[in-house]
C-alpha cells in the first residue's frame, strides 16, 4: 500500500524531484511540494469542496439560463444589482427556508454555498424548478403560477434547497470522472501556475461534470429515492421555517391534476405526483396544522399578480 501511494505520489511530481527522491538527495523544496500534493490528494478524494461546487454551479446555472434564452423576471433590476418585484419576493421566501435549512446541520449535509442562496424566476410554460449545485435555484413562471399560496411556493423552494443541502446534484456525477482526473488535478497542486495542458484537463473534468448534472436536471431526472428525500426534507425545512408543511401536499395535488395537460416539466424528470403524495402521507401526521394568516395570502396574490 505504501509503495502504491509512493507511485501515485511520484506520478504527480516533477521528474527532477522524483530523480532526487530516488537518489536520496531530497531537498526541503521537494518535501514542501510533496506535502502540498499529499494534502491535495486527501482533500480532493474526500469530497468536492464548496469551492469546486461553486464553479460547477455557476456553469450549470448559466446553462439553465441559456436553455431559457436568458429570459427571467426582473432582469433590468438584476442588471442594476437590485432585487425587485417577483424576484425579490421569491428571494425573500427562498432565503427564509434556506435559513431554516442551514440552522441545523445533518450528517452528510453540504457546507454553506460559498456564494450564498440565489433564486431566479425563469420564463417557461412548463411547471418546473431546478437546483444547480452551489445554491443557484430556478423556478419557472408556470410553477410560480401553479402555487396557490406563499406556503406552497415555500415548499417548492424548500424541496430545491433540500437538493442542494444534501448534495443530490453532485451524486449524479459519474464517479469515473473524479477517479480519472485526480492525478491531473494534483499535478497542478504544488505549482505556481497551471499549464495550458493542465487547464485543458481540468476543463475536460468541468465539461463532464456539467454534462452529468444537466442530464440529471433535464433528461434523466434524479433517482426516485432522491426526490422522495427532497420532498420529506423540504416539508421538514418549511415547517421549521414556520410555513404550513401541508402546503407541499396541496401543491402536489395540483400537480397531479396537471399531469395530463403536458404542462409539467416536473413530470419528465420526477416521480408521479401521486407516488410522491403516497410517500409523503407517512410523514405528514407528525406535523401540526398551521393556520395561514390572511396577510400572507394577500401579499402572495399581490406579489405574483404580474406573473404571466
Amino acid at each position: 500500500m505504501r509503495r502504491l501511494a509512493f507511485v501515485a505520489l511520484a506520478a504527480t511530481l516533477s521528474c527532477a524531484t522524483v530523480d532526487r527522491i530516488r537518489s536520496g538527495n531530497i531537498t526541503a523544496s521537494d518535501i514542501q511540494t510533496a506535502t502540498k500534493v499529499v494534502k491535495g490528494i486527501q482533500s480532493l478524494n474526500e469530497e468536492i469542496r464548496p469551492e469546486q461546487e461553486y464553479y460547477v454551479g455557476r456553469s450549470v446555472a448559466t446553462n439553465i439560463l441559456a436553455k431559457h434564452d436568458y429570459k427571467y423576471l426582473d432582469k433590468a433590476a438584476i442588471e442594476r444589482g437590485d432585487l425587485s418585484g417577483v424576484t425579490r419576493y421569491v428571494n425573500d421566501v427562498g432565503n427564509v427556508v434556506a435559513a431554516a435549512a442551514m440552522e441545523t446541520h445533518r450528517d452528510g449535509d453540504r457546507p454553506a454555498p460559498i456564494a450564498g442562496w440565489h433564486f431566479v424566476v425563469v420564463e417557461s410554460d412548463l411547471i418546473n424548478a431546478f437546483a444547480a449545485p452551489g445554491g443557484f435555484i430556478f423556478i419557472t413562471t408556470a410553477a410560480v403560477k401553479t402555487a396557490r399560496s406563499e406556503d406552497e411556493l415555500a415548499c417548492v423552494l424548500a424541496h430545491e434547497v433540500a437538493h442542494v443541502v444534501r448534495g443530490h446534484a453532485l451524486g449524479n456525477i459519474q464517479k469515473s470522472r473524479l477517479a480519472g482526473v485526480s492525478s491531473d488535478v494534483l499535478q497542478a497542486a504544488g505549482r505556481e501556475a497551471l499549464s495550458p495542458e493542465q487547464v485543458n484537463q481540468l476543463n475536460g473534468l468541468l465539461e463532464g461534470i456539467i454534462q452529468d448534472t444537466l442530464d440529471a436536471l433535464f433528461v434523466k431526472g434524479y433517482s426516485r429515492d432522491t426526490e422522495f428525500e427532497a420532498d420529506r426534507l423540504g416539508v421538514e425545512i418549511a415547517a421549521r421555517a414556520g410555513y404550513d408543511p401541508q402546503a407541499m401536499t396541496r401543491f402536489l395535488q395540483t400537480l397531479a391534476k396537471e399531469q395530463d395537460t403536458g404542462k409539467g416539466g416536473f413530470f419528465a424528470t420526477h416521480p408521479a405526483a401521486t407516488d410522491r403524495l403516497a410517500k409523503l402521507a407517512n410523514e405528514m401526521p407528525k406535523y401540526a396544522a398551521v393556520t395561514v394568516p390572511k396577510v400572507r395570502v394577500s401579499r402572495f396574490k399581490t406579489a405574483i399578480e404580474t406573473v404571466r
Partner: protein
Amino acid sequence: MTRRTMWAAVLAAALGASGVVAAQGGKTVTVQTLTGKVQKTPSFLAPTVAKVVRGDQLSSLEQQKDWLRVTTKDGQSGWISKASVVDKAVALSTKPGGGAGGVSEDEVALAGRGFSPEVEAKYRSTHPDLDFSHIDKIEKLDVDGGELAKFVADGKIGGGK
C-alpha cells in the same frame, strides 16, 4: 417588544438559534464564503452588523450552537454562521482557486487546486454561446437579514405555532 420583533424572536427560537453558550477561547477563524455577514444576534434573520469577504480573519470569542461570536479587524462584534468560516486562520484568495499562481498552500490543502477562474475561462472560451454575465450579476444579489426578519414578521410566518 413590538409585534414585529416578537415574531422575529419566535422564529429565531423556532429555528433553534437559542442554545447553551460555550466558551471558544480567542480562536481565529477565516471567512470562506465570497461575502459574509456578521449579524447582531445568532440568527440568519438578524440585521447585519458588518460585511466580510472571503479570506477575512475574525477572532472568535464564543460559540452558540452553529454560530460564533466574532470581532472583525475593525473591531465590530456580532455573530457569524459556522458554515461560513473555516475553523482556523488560513490564507484564502478572494476568488476561489485564485488567479494564475494565486493560490496559497492553505488553499490547496483546504480545497485542492481544482476549478479556478482560469479553468472557467477555458470552459467559456469553448462555449462562446454561453453568457456568464447573467450569473455574475445574480450571484452578487443579496437579501439582508433585517429585511428577512421584517418579511417574516409582516407575513406572520411561524405565527401559527
